[in-house]
């Protein structure tokens, strides 16, 4: 079963989406396995449904939404620090992704 703080949007997805904030150290049940979450995860953010090797397509809504730039462990936060667009760079107030 899946912790109620996360949702799986499509069966093909390799990420879960957070529906209610979880904090580092919280134990969550992600289908067959329970793990301790390593970092705070806010609503709307993604964590890995399984281990994702570097260069893997990230699947959400059953569709590819980018690729990992490094390997991501099961249950770890998937975001700009470890994935990128396959089309066009994203940006924050401080920097564009992929730039130092």
């Amino acid at each position, binding site marked *: 079963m899946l912790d109620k703080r996360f*949702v799986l949007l499509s069966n093909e997805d390799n990420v879960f989406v957070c529906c209610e904030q979880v904090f580092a150290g919280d134990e969550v049940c992600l289908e067959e396995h329970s793990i301790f979450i390593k970092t705070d995860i806010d609503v709307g953010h993604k964590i890995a449904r399984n281990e994702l090797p570097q260069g893997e397509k990230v699947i959400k809504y059953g569709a590819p939404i980018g690729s990992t730039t490094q390997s991501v462990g099961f249950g770890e936060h998937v975001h700009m620090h470890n994935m990128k667009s396959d089309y066009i760079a*994203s940006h924050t107030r401080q920097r564009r992704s992929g730039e130092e």
Partner: protein
Amino acid sequence: MQGYLRADGRKGIRNIVLVTYLVECAHHVARAIVTQSESEDVQLIGFQGCYPNEYSLNIMERLCTHPNIAGVLIVSLGCEGFNREQLAKTVAASGRPVETLVIQKSGGTKSTIAAGLERINSLVDVAKQSEIVTMDINELIVGTICGGSDGTSGIGANPAVGHCFDKLIEQGAACIFEETGELIGCEQIMADRAITPELGEEIMKSVEKAENYYTHMGYGSFAPGNAEGGLTTQEEKSMGAYAKSGSSKIHGLIKPGDIPSQGGLYLMDVVPDDTPLFGFPNISDNAEIMEMIASGAHLTLFTTGRGSVVGSAISPVIKICANPETYENLSEDMDINAGKVIKGEATIAQVGDEVFELVKLVASGQQSKSEELGHQESVITYKRFDAIGPSCLPTIR
């Protein structure tokens, strides 16, 4: 539902007298006329630039002849490039009363404001005579945009709007979604939904154009708040945004100012043609809302996760909030709480039905939250477009 019948046969859901300035230099005078008129039905829009632009003129003509508009006061400084004569001619040809004041010929600020207030009084009197007639859902044009999206937008608010769109289209309304730059990654699935293969090809080309354009600009249509809200890439944001379109076939591909020729679902291509010339295609959400309105949208469904507060001049904006935390924080600004979806308290269809019911109420005169709060934002930009191709509009079914 009831609407205001205009001389050109179109029906509006609001009865507004519009004051428009044609260059920033005339902004203060125009705003003073609107403020001092002390009428809720007098609204302000305008254009900042001094250089002429075919697109800006076209958009201004469409806005001034929108079915929600009963009459227009044009405020010009006098020396700007905007073709005020053509604008006045177009408004007059639509059967709407129109007045033009040129500040340089009217004795300056004070006397132009005084003259403007006189003109506004008579325009408001004419507006009060507008004929009220019955109006059906199949006469409505409804737009949708998203702003301040986050990881919840694509789960709650956007699919709920999609559900509402399906219901509106079933009943004959025309619905418009956009923005090709925010649909990068969805081009193939959209093309597959087109009513003809030729339209599918046009859709593919429009998204390819958007990708090239944004690459040239150096930024995608992606704001820092999107990332803070859990969205990582343009295509992730796109997949969420795409859910606003619902499940109908796509009947047409229009550009800002093109009015849907019949009911159905339309994609709006807001990315300028040819080489990038005037900057970003969608400088802010209100520029997109204005383009929807220029294409005839009677009202706009605005989905948000981070929490936008904007409304619009001319047409009501209904805000649908996907993020339960944001809803709690900004509930006075939000019309619909779609945060119930991710909390498991309501289904997408239930929230979509709620949106549909609110569309009917707001179309019947009930004020949306942003209207109540006095939001009347508007932005008109410089752009350049070629006319749409022959396969972009549906032929009569």
